[in-house]
């Protein structure tokens, strides 16, 4: 199948779309990405196991950071986040500053989300881990339903549907379930973003607005160069995402909520010139679905 086929409908766009880039990673690269993603989920699971009522978001985010550094992480795509209770659904968020870990204390029955993006040797992972302390039936239901989002996204990306249409399909599924779209609260309303090997310039471990300095460099360069190509490294519902999935790695993070409970997963999706697959299926949320089958 030639990758040009789905592009024909795009010719009406104002920016001329060039042919998509070749898939830039070899098997070794993918192994490094996968190892790092495993490491990140491992640290998140260990912090989740340690979480107990009384712990604050700042303490949780700090512990996550220390565990990652102890495991050899050199830099962060963005600093680790932790959200508890209704903050998992980003309720009452007015400014981006509210994403930063707060003094909110965990209570029995509360849900939580841990989000971290470690960088090792320029390889990046970006993961989201949802959990709960004690009993929370709303959480249980959404956790089960998240599986459909993972399957839907893969199916539509494989069909090389434009990313904004995939986004709309996710919205339709959210409406069918009766939840609401919480990833639209992220800056740019993104459900995902491209992940590349960061270029080794600038000081590692230095953050600006929660993002690593190296991240900002890479992201900035990508935003400009991809825009020229009529594509965006950010995956949202607007016109800038009106293009088929760009080959490469995408961190995908559907985040849905119901009342005061929000859940997400975030993991890397591998998009090649003619196929797509999740980088790794051995992840906590996938294992949870397998067990409940």
């Amino acid at each position, binding site marked *: 199948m030639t990758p040009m086929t789905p592009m024909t409908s795009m010719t009406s766009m104002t920016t001329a779309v060039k042919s998509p880039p070749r898939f830039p990673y070899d098997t070794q690269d993918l192994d490094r990405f996968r190892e790092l993603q495993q490491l990140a989920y491992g640290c998140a699971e260990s912090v989740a196991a340690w979480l107990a009522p009384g712990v604050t978001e700042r303490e949780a985010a700090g512990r996550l950071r220390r565990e990652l550094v102890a495991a050899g992480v050199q830099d962060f795509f963005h600093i680790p986040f932790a959200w508890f209770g209704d903050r998992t659904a980003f309720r009452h968020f007015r400014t981006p500053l509210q994403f930063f870990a707060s003094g909110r204390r965990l209570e029995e029955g509360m849900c939580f989300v841990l989000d971290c993006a470690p960088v090792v040797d320029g390889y990046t992972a970006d993961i989201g881990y949802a959990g709960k302390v004690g009993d929370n*039936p*709303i959480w249980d*239901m959404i956790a089960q339903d998240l599986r459909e989002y993972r399957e839907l996204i893969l199916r539509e990306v494989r069909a090389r549907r434009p990313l904004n249409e995939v986004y*709309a399909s996710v*919205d*339709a599924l959210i*409406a*069918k*379930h*009766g939840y*609401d779209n919480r990833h639209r609260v992220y800056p740019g309303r993104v459900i995902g973003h491209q992940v590349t090997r960061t270029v080794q310039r600038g000081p590692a471990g230095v953050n600006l607005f929660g993002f690593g300095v190296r991240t900002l460099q890479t992201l900035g360069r990508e935003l400009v160069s991809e825009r020229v190509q009529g594509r965006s490294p950010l995956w949202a*519902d607007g016109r800038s995402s009106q293009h088929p999935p760009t080959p490469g790695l995408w961190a995908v993070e559907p985040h849905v909520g*119901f*009342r005061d409970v929000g859940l997400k997963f975030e993991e890397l999706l591998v998009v090649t010139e003619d196929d797509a697959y999740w980088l790794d299926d051995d992840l906590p949320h996938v294992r949870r679905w397998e067990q409940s089958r």
Partner: protein
Amino acid sequence: MTAAARHLTVTGPSGLPLSVHAEGDPAHPTVVLVHGYPDTHRVWDDVAADLSADHHVVRYDVRGAGGSGRPERVRDYRLEHLADDLTAVADAVSPDRPVHVVAHDWGSIQSWEAVTRPGAEARIASYTSISGPCLDHIGHWARHRFARPTPRHLAQLAGQAAHSWYIVAFHLPGLAPLAWQHGLAARWDSVLRLVEGVTPRAGDPRSARELAGDAVRGIGLYRANMLPRLLNPGQRPTLVPVQTITLTEDNYVSPALTEGLERWAPQLWRRTIPVGHWGALLEKGTTVARMVREFTAHHEGGPALPRAPRRLVVLTGAGSGIGRATALAFAERGAEVVLLDRDLESAERTVELARLLGATAHAYQVDVSDGAAMDALAAKVAAEHGVPDVLVNNAGVGHSGSFLETTEAEWKRVLDVNLWGVIHGCRAFGALMAARGEGGHIVNLASAAAYLPSRMLAAYATSKAGVSMLSDCLRAELAGQGIKVSAIYPGIVNTNITRSTTFSGLDDAEQTAQRRRVSGLYARRNFPPEKVAAAIVKAVADDRPFVPVTVEAKAARVLGRLSPGLIRTAARFRLG
């Protein structure tokens, strides 16, 4: 055993003869009905006729009224003596078995005295109080509010004071007796008709002279009890199960008076009838009888009875969008919800979500445009879950296209669902609400298009304008029965109505593209259905008849009234 009415005379401890009437099988549970001021036992005619089918119904004229003895002194009207009379009647007609007391107005005030005596639970199995609080409780109620003068408390005090003017008048020497003797008694029927809005029952055997006599003597009730009890209230708790029937249109007793009653009567059931002080007995006798029957049955070992009437809300189109959001909003506030949708699976999903919020919920499949199916479903819902307190006619379809391009089939579909669906809902469930007699609320989802013409929305806007006018007419018709009607005008709300909207004169591919375009527009406007749901809940709570929700819906309304010509001109532009 005889079901015919029997008359007997009971003499209480003070030696006054009491005229007592009994009917129904004495083997059945005994219900003692105590009338108020200035009535006699005849005020209970409707209630007694209904209850005597399965109860031993006993009613008597209280001292000073009707055929009973007439005390000489004001102090003979003290509540202690009145409670003694009630106990004497109960002992005479049901010596071995506790009785169920049902009382209205001053009958209720004096029955509270009996019910709150230590050990009353041995003789009184249950007590249904209608529009007559315990004076000692009210003394504490007022003290509490004076001690904590929050705006709400002050409003409650002022509200009750405005209802109590006549109590002051009854304490002024000479004034009330003169009024009764010189015209008020002769015109009492007119007072009931004009002030209370009820039709006096034919056949009150009292002449105006006799009524005036009863009324003048009855002033003793006020003078002997009001000030001592209100100014120096005692502690009067009770273990007797109490059912309080609040009359929302009562001119004398404000509903706020029962607030906090659980402190004195921990076994408390609350019911409400949207009717005035005398309307409850003269017009809603069967409703009162049904409430008494349910209450006595429960305490005679019958089925469980919820403490507060749970609110039953029926919603159409409850599988998505505003319908689902509204269902969940009511569910969150403790209502039981019955969810109707053409797509059963989507309604069942809403049930699942409502249950997660702790509510009881049920789903049914129905096409609102099918009148017979709606009638059958309403009967089924009534049988399985009861008569709804709130009906939300939400189901609707979107359609866009110029008049000349819209086919007959498209017109039919839009009118069938959007207008006939609402008509069927109002007919099927409105009839149940009216028959039950406890009022209710009907919410119809219209649209800003109902008052905002557009060349592209002929069919849709016509259907919604119909819903708007239907709601106005229905509100007028049902007002007398305590059934409120609200029409909601949402505006541009992000729901799946745009994903199913049809467009005239476009082929399938164009329809899909147009649908996507409009859905995108609605998504960017991003007004969530949850906010419409909140507006609907508020419309029901505050009884708001006309509710535009979004800014554009409100602006269009204002603009349409300021300059109809402007919106007629604007209607020529192709929008949407």
